């Protein structure tokens, strides 16, 4: 039982990271109807910016870890958001009136551009960092197995919960959130009601990228490394999470992220690490066969 609880904790932490990335996929899909294949690489960029910011802050002599972490978080979110905004502006907006596949192809291109940019500018080797947050708690010790909850796990989960609460508030209660949902449901009508649709779409990319940056930083803290290729597999996992939860649904993205994180962790713990991706994608296929719109997705046909 202790072993089970340990895996549950590990799975929830991993799932939080996937969920944060998945929200970016689902938001963009909701508002412009395209899969932003460059989003995984935005997550990778976020990880690198977190690393660079961390090294700069340490080199100028900051030592108080909570302040460093907060500054790293803010800088990573801001700079990565700028990347998200730029990608939309140069690669997707000019193609918005084009045929449906065009922005998606452009997104795949952007994905290559970003990962190669990181490879060329930062090098191809894995960048390790020493553990920044150390220590933790032993929740239960049965003698032969101890359930551990590390401080870094607490930071990942608490940060995710706080950001999701803020994000949910923005989407459901503020004017910007309302404008975003209006654009999602009917862009023409939103424009007739004074909503600047282009600006709202830009802001959607900005928020999605900022959340991906948080995920990138959490990944860096949790695994202690980044590399230029990490956006690919994490991106595919998060995309799977978004589809599993029901693409276009924000709670679905988080739920899907947690589900993928848990499936992967439990499969690795009880069966084999080698097949963890196979397990995650198999569950996706099975769910989609029986629930084509995902766990919380809505059917395309609506009463109008």
């Amino acid at each position, binding site marked *: 039982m202790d072993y089970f609880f340990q895996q549950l904790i590990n799975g929830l932490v991993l799932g939080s990271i996937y969920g944060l990335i998945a929200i970016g996929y689902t938001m963009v899909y909701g508002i412009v109807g395209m899969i932003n294949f460059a989003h995984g690489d935005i997550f990778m960029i976020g990880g690198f910016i977190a690393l660079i910011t961390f090294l700069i802050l340490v080199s100028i002599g900051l030592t108080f870890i909570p302040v460093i972490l907060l500054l790293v978080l803010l800088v990573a979110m801001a700079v990565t958001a700028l990347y998200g905004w730029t990608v939309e502006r140069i690669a997707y907006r000019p193609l918005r009136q084009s045929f449906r596949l065009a922005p998606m192809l452009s997104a795949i291109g952007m994905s290559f551009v970003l990962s190669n940019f990181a490879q060329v500018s930062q090098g191809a080797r894995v960048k390790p960092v020493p553990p920044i947050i150390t220590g933790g708690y032993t929740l239960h010790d049965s003698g032969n197995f101890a359930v551990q909850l590390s401080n870094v796990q607490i930071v990942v989960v608490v940060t995710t919960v706080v950001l999701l609460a803020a994000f949910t508030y923005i989407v459901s209660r503020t004017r910007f959130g309302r404008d975003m949902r209006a654009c999602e*449901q009917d862009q023409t009508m939103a*424009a*007739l*009601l004074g909503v600047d649709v282009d600006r709202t779409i830009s802001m959607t990319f900005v928020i999605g990228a900022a959340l991906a940056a948080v995920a990138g930083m959490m990944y860096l803290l949790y695994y202690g490394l980044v590399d230029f290729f990490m956006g690919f597999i994490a991106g595919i996992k998060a995309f799977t999470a978004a589809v599993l939860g029901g693409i276009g649904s924000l709670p679905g993205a988080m739920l899907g992220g947690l589900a993928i994180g848990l499936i992967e962790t439990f499969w690795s713990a009880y069966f084999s690490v080698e097949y963890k991706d196979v397990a995650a994608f198999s569950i996706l296929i099975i769910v989609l066969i029986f629930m084509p719109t995902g766990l919380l997705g809505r059917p395309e046909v609506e*009463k109008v």
Partner: protein
Amino acid sequence: MSAAATSLLAIRGLRAAYGKIEALKGVDLDIKSGEIVALIGANGAGKSTLMMSIFGRPRARAGHILFDGQDITALPAHQVARLRIAQSPEGRRIFPRMTVAENLQMGADATPGSDAERAASLERVLKLFPRLDERMTQRGGTLSGGEQQMLAIGRALMSRPRLLLLDEPSLGLAPLITRQIFSAIRTLNREDHLTVLIVEQNANHALRLAHRGYVMVNGLITMSGPGMELLQRPEIRAAYLEGGRHG
């Protein structure tokens, strides 16, 4: 003095097209402040296109649209809306996954206004359409057709418009609901001096309501005049009231 100088909305020689199909072939139309103007015509005559072209969708290929003397022909849709031109469009287009309250809030957000002004608009809308008050927390998509139409008009009114554009408010509604909606429009015009352009296939209702009417055929205005006068004309009776009413 040209008519354009005294009109709240003046459309001059407007041409617009969808791809190669020209939907408006040089339309002139005037609406004076405080007027109800009806635009009637058969399906596909270009009535809805004319309304949407005020918001630049589709964008005019030639001609001008002046609102209160300002040329708005090239303005993006959201900026036109901020001038307090509100539309209850074809198909109502309410936001199905937002509550009734949020739909109304979207209308209020279209133009700046104090909290007191917004509260007053809301009170006005709910007084005109008490049904909406009972449905405030319900999602727009779950409303009946008549309620959706009331919501679409209510949402437009929330921006405290200077010009209200109504596209087929009676389409698909029971006669009783249609009467309620038309009486609400009349009240708004009399008590709040709201200027209204109403597009209708139901020519009888629309022309009785309107001060003046325009008849549109194949992208051109073919007749205009006071509403009751148009109603008496035999060619209108033949085309839009007797034989053409359902066609």
